């Protein structure tokens, strides 16, 4: 097996992976960096983010306020030391991107412009039109091209970590164009593999967001933290799940039930605001999770609109007029016309809440270090945690930068202090990974189809671990997932070609998703309270006495995960009430 020796290996070349790579390359031009990604860097899902990235720059803003918004938004499940670090680094990272050429929108005087964003009480979201994530990703990718010591391995699919002598010493990956296994030996490894929204049937995530990075760490014994917290975005296109940005409501779009009634006023977000005059923090501009939850209740009450794609409510933007829609929401109009055949200028658009973001992930500390020496994680796959029980929109794009950067520097320090690994032991691990793969590959009969299992998984996730949960539903989903994991061992592979075998990769991705899904469901079953994105119909209140804790899921190869708990770090802000009724001082 071909071995690639490197100092630091990075799995994932989205925003977090690229930021880490650049940090390493700048810190030491002699260090060897292997940047491994299953897609070309600019295909990573960071490109899909539209809204923007939060960082304190304006004189009317302060770190304290960004801190309060983040911690309150996270329903006090955020580690406050991490948030502290995060908010101070945020403006530096965003300015750094500006220096690298990111086309941030500007004020007439040439300084960076900021916009309002859900849950942020002050305008502090930097944006690049409605393509913020796209510009961030491309700026990072293009910037990375100037460093010869960043060696890219595009379209390499990482499968397993290599652990020897109590520390992470590399990984195995499939070179997709040849189908061959490669062994990366490294002084330290950073996982920046992105989220796992694909384990739900209806999501805003790209096809690559299958939680491979999380699953890899998990299988290597690193706990997954707070996995039960899965964020829904209120406005997804009902058939494709494509995100209709929050700006639809920000510009004045309203939500209606089947009787054309603005139902949000029934859920504590009223009183009704005049049409075309949206007001911060009330009605349609209430916090996203509350809006999503209200839609769910409307559906339960039978006041939803029945469509071929399930129960929806209307998003009405007609009163904005063609001109405003073309100027402010051109992409939204495009998407609605393309995928639904509905022109928002003339008709109401059916929408429903859609799985959007994973708050949970690989447990790391503020230094982006995991519990396994030599292994670091950053980005959506990691849980530091700053997002707590509910991420605020526009914090995650900054998180990937702040902790990508940190992960790079910490991994460098760690790798420098290490002696070369034991080649023979690592080679044996490589062979083992190879053998596992070959077994999957060579098996001539399998009873289970990949798409069939995947469908059963996504269905049970939506049913039991969706926007509202119950003990019974979660228990059923846990059982189902355990069963699916067993049946996965019998999955059939139809494609026997080495070159670009997407059938094989789908099978591996399904395996990752099943592992992550089980962590979500079991963690959720054990958390008997409602907090942030984890809403239970049988335990409707937050319970700080028992659950002001992070849940930690530990992998078991054949059994469901073991759940453990860990205290939340609270420095200055004791748990309070999530308050969206007015600006706090």
């Amino acid at each position, binding site marked *: 097996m071909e071995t690639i020796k490197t100092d630091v290996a990075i799995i994932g070349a989205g925003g977090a992976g690229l930021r880490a790579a650049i940090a390493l390359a700048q810190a030491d031009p002699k260090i060897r960096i292997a940047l491994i990604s299953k897609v070309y860097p600019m295909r990573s899902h960071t490109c899909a983010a539209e809204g923007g990235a939060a960082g304190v720059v304006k004189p009317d803003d302060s770190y304290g306020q960004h801190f309060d918004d983040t911690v309150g938004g996270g329903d006090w499940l955020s580690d406050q030391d991490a948030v502290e670090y995060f908010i101070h680094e945020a403006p530096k990272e965003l300015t750094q991107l500006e220096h690298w050429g990111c086309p941030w929108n500007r004020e007439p005087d040439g300084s960076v412009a900021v916009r309002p964003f859900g849950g942020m009480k002050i305008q502090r979201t930097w944006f690049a039109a409605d393509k913020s994530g796209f510009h961030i990703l491309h700026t990072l990718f293009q910037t990375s091209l100037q460093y010869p010591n960043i060696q890219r391995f595009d379209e390499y699919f990482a499968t397993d970590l290599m652990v020897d002598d109590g520390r992470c010493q590399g990984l195995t990956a499939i070179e997709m164009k040849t189908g061959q296994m490669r062994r990366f030996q490294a002084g330290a490894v950073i996982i920046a593999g992105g989220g796992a929204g694909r384990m739900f049937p209806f999501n805003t995530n*790209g096809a690559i967001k299958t939680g491979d990075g999380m699953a890899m760490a998990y299988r290597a014994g690193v706990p997954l933290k707070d996995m039960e917290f899965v964020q829904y975005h209120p406005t997804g296109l009902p058939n494709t799940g*494509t995100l209709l940005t929050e700006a639809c409501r920000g510009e004045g779009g309203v939500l209606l039930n089947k009787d054309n009634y603005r139902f949000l006023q029934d859920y504590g977000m009223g009183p009704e605001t005049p049409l075309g005059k949206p007001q911060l923090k009330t009605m349609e501009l209430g916090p996203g999770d509350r809006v999503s939850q209200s839609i769910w209740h409307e559906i339960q009450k039978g006041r939803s609109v029945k469509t071929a794609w399930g129960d929806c409510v209307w998003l009405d933007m007609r009163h904005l007029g063609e001109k405003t829609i073309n100027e402010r929401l051109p992409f939204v109009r495009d998407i609605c016309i393309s995928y639904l055949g509905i022109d928002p200028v003339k008709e109401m658009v059916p929408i429903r809440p859609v799985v959007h973001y994973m708050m949970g992930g690989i447990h790391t500390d503020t230094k982006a270090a995991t519990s396994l020496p030599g292994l670091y994680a950053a980005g959506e796959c990691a849980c530091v945690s700053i997002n707590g029980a509910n991420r605020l929109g526009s914090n995650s794009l900054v998180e990937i930068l702040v902790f990508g950067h940190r992960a790079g520097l910490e991994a460098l320090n760690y790798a420098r202090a290490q002696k070369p690994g034991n080649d023979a032991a690592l080679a044996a691990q490589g062979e083992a990974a190879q053998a596992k793969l070959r077994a999957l590959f060579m098996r001539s009969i399998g009873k289970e189809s990949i798409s069939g299992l995947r469908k059963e998984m996504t269905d049970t996730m939506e049913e039991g671990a969706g926007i509202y949960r119950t003990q019974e539903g979660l228990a059923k989903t846990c059982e189902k997932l355990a069963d699916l994991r067993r049946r996965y061992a019998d999955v059939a592979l139809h494609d026997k070609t080495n070159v*670009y075998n997407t059938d094989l990769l789908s099978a591996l991705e399904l395996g990752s998703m099943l592992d992550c899904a089980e962590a979500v469901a079991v963690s959720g079953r054990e958390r008997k309270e409602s907090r942030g994105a984890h809403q239970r119909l049988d335990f409707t209140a937050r319970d700080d006495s028992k659950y002001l804790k992070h849940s930690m899921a530990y992998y078991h190869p054949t059994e469901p995960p073991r759940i453990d708990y860990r205290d939340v770090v609270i420095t200055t802000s004791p748990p309070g009430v999530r308050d969206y009724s007015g600006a706090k001082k």
Partner: protein
Amino acid sequence: MSENRLGARQVELEVLRYNPETDEAPRYQRYSVPCKNEWCMLDALNYLKDNLDPTLAYRWSCHMQVCGSCGMMINGEPKLACKAMVRDYEGVIRIEPLAHFPIERDLVSVADDFMDKLKRVKPYLIPGQPKTLAEGEYKQTPEQLKRYHKFSMCINCMLCYAACPEYGLTKSKFIGPAAITLAHRYNLDSRDGGRDERQEEIATNEGVWECTFVGACSDVCPKHVDPAAALQQVKVASTVDWYLEHFMSWSKK
């Protein structure tokens, strides 16, 4: 919902298949796929892969026209599969990998050449006046932003390379529309001072001078980047450069 929106129909796809391990040359395979009217071609392919033939290989990720993975030829035109709507086609639809690129397998093309070219044009800010982070951001007015903004919208989908005959005819020597456009984007950026370095790459025979202004690149670009305009502007600027360099060398400092 009105009927036509929910309509479904059986769509005949003729998909190019190429398995380097078993096929001497590419061949076409027919599939009959039950499609909904609001589907894009990518939905049809995903249905095909999940239900009819799991061995078909193609790239995709975002399903929202922004990651640039899913470029392919649909009835001979370079398109994003997630942007081409099934309802806009009739009869048998032919699906092939992007023209001009080597075929790795089925609809997957080899993108190495494009990636090399991107890197070659130095598509990153080379600051005119370096600044430290502590000094804050560079000032850039909305006008200055607008100057290059359109050219920064490229998603690297490579459709323009599949459309540009000169890229095919020169056997990929031509640096090509997207890469040159990207260089131009940085050249136009008020914060940048790296134009001279980039000109060394793009004001060359294999650079912008291979472009004969066919304009196909701009016709097919799904993001309205208008690379043909960028290349034309680069030619004008390079011509001015040339005359200045050769006839008015004293004007250079």
